[in-house]
């Protein structure tokens, strides 16, 4: 059940408003173009913003039978927020690839109670026994500083993930997917975010 080019179970975790659902559909759509069968299912509560969101993406060379995955069977995880990976940790398989946005979005519960918010070091400590294949990427920070919009952090993370994963998804298919799914005036920005993510990821590979 290793993460190979024959397919994988992927989860994307984050907070409502971070573009989780879009990232999942972009990834699945590009994978479909690359000849995989795909099923995506996501879960978000009633709120438009601020709630925990999880997407399940199943990609197979053969047929994907059902949406959702069992615990301990996600061969990859993308977390758009640093604390949210912990909420879904039981889904992550040993040795899984984890690409985590080094960006904290403390909930109002934490803020008003003054409760502790997990740091990058604490999160890494917890994840390490499961997998050493963990990458922290300051996606939101770079998206704001270098691209001028926090909203493309999701696509930046996607670029980093595709660079680090072994999925056979070419840039060409990914760019085609962006063009089909993103409003015209934001396409260039998203393409830049995608390549920025790939660039950062390749600098992280030892």
């Amino acid at each position, binding site marked *: 059940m290793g993460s190979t080019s024959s397919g994988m179970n992927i989860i994307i975790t984050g907070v409502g408003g971070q573009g989780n659902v879009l990232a999942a559909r972009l990834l699945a759509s590009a994978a479909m173009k690359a000849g995989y069968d795909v099923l995506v299912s996501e879960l978000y509560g*009633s709120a438009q913003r601020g709630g925990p969101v999880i997407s399940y993406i199943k990609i197979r060379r053969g047929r994907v039978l059902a949406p959702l995955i069992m615990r301990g069977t996600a061969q990859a995880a993308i977390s758009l927020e640093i604390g949210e990976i912990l909420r879904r940790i039981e889904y992550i398989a040993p040795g899984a690839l984890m690409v985590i946005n080094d960006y904290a979005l403390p909930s109002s*519960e934490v803020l008003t109670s003054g409760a502790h918010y997990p740091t990058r070091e604490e999160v890494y400590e917890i994840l390490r026994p499961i997998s050493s294949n963990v990458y922290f990427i300051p996606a939101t920070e770079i998206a704001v500083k270098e691209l001028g919009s926090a909203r493309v952090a999701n696509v930046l993370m996607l670029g980093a993930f595709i660079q680090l994963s072994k999925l056979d998804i070419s840039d060409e298919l990914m760019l085609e997917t962006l063009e089909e799914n993103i409003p015209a005036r934001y396409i260039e920005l998203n393409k830049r975010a995608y390549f920025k993510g790939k660039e950062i990821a390749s600098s992280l590979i030892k």
Partner: protein
Amino acid sequence: MSLREILKLDKPGHRVLMMGNYAIARGAIEAGVEVATGYPGTPSTEALEALASVSDELGFYVELSVNEKVAVEVAGGAALAGYKAMSTMKHVGLNVASDIVQTLNLSGIDDGALVLYVADDPGAWVSQNEQDTRVFANFLHLPCLTPHRPGHAKELTIKAFEISKKYSLPVILRTTHRVSHASGVVELGEIPTRTMRPGVFKKNLEKYYLGDVYVQKLHEELHEKLLKLEKEFGDPSLHIVKKSGEIGIIGDGVAFTYAAEAVEILGAESEVSLLGLSAVNPLPTELLLDFLRDMRQVLVVEEVEPYLETQLKAIIGDAGLNVKVLGRKTGHIPWSSELDLELVTKALAKILGKEERMKKVMAVNMDVVEKAKKLTPPRYLSFCPGCPHLATFYELKRAMLFEHVDLRKAPIPLDIGCYGLAPFSAVKIGDISFCMGSGIGVAQGLEIAMEQQIPVVGVIGDSTFYHAGMPALLNAAWNNHPIIMLVADNRTTAMTGHQPHPGVPRRIDGKETIWIKPEDIARATGYEFVEVIDPYDVNKSVETFRKAIRYVRDRRKPAVIVARRECALIAPTKPPYKVDPDKCTGCKVCLTMFGCQALQWDPSTRKVLIRPELCVGCGVCAQICPFKAIVPGGE
């Protein structure tokens, strides 16, 4: 390709990734839909939106109706004149529509077609209950199809139109959350050329005048139709049948797909036979018996109620078979919440004695999970930054406190919409949330029973107001229930993703129309106290709420307040505010009494800061801060 281009693409065989709701819209287009109506409701909404996005170009009619009952009446009317019509709604929407459906089943729809797309929400992720539309379909005597993935949903939508026309009966297409909102590969079919020919209504009192003169005959005919449908649904090619061992799984919808994958995970292909049903009312008895005769025991995998389970037992009993039925009643499947792959695999593993194999696949390090759970930050539902509802509730609570209302006693019924998040916000207000329109209705009964000095405030949203709040509004006026009705008008149906409603001068297809204001309706029905407030103006809003409380107490008459401000997700944003650290005393009033998500506590400085990427510049917190420490950021 954009969604609109995909919906219009006449390229049979082309494969695209589509959400279940879009696949259903595409299915309706391929079936030649001529009229589509509906009311937003998660997880169904995107189907109607998708249809509206291409209706002009493809030449059919779409409307977002005021509620589901009206939607089905409009679609049903068009079907009576020979059109192919569709209505979309969520499971609880069918409750609202059921009155008309319980007559259209008897009258039929002549040679038109009427498909009711009803999306269920097992787990009630975004609903007030878990309700099983298959049970309702049985009660409504209507054929019911249950797709299991987006591509299948498209195919069954086309089938639903065919059956509806063939039997002159409305057909229910029942999905669940994980079909409607899942995205999967869909193969496109042909788009028929469409000519919106004038419809013809063939007068026939014996069919359309429901009452004791004709109705018994219609009832008998309906049952005759159902007997024929049972045969039609017996066609094995409509279902998934995989005969193998003596242990069988029977299921439908997405639940069946979990079972199919569970068999693969457990490597039980040679032991387990599968029957995945695509049509569940009426149940194809012969097909089921063919399957059941070779089984020793059968696990029934279905969401939400033991609908198949119960009927299967009757079928087995009638046929005198000796097959053990496993499911909810034997404890293999839980009675509430949605099913998932793990749950179904577990049930099957238990039956097959393959628990060890399942454990091997699921490599969960419980130690790590325990540690992670301790560190996982709590994160509940909350209002978006700049949400006008949050400001409205802050102001209502302030006014109640100023007027010495005992907040422990005063009931505040809420309604269905984003404002229902109020009890979970920092404002912590709101006590009841039932169903569409009940916020105003329940408030009236509470008022009868409460002490007179305790004002009852019924809260309702804008779309909800038109949907089911208006009869309750009339009732409060006519029967004189002295309550405060708060209409939280954010100029959109926000929770389902920003659809228009009669309080917006724009139809779902983008065309202009009239703006019907709640305050005008209230005034026209005799309300004397009707005020419109802007929740972003804190002092004025608090003052108006106080006036309303005094009015209701002193005059013993109902009052209406419309809190109007566009949803922060669609309104243009303004530059973010910032905190002046010299003035911020760290009192936390903004965090604990108001609690906008953009406001955050900085433990290092012990002061509040504003996250510029979240702040929409509404300025409400600046008005709330007792030390005037929150100021416009200016960039």
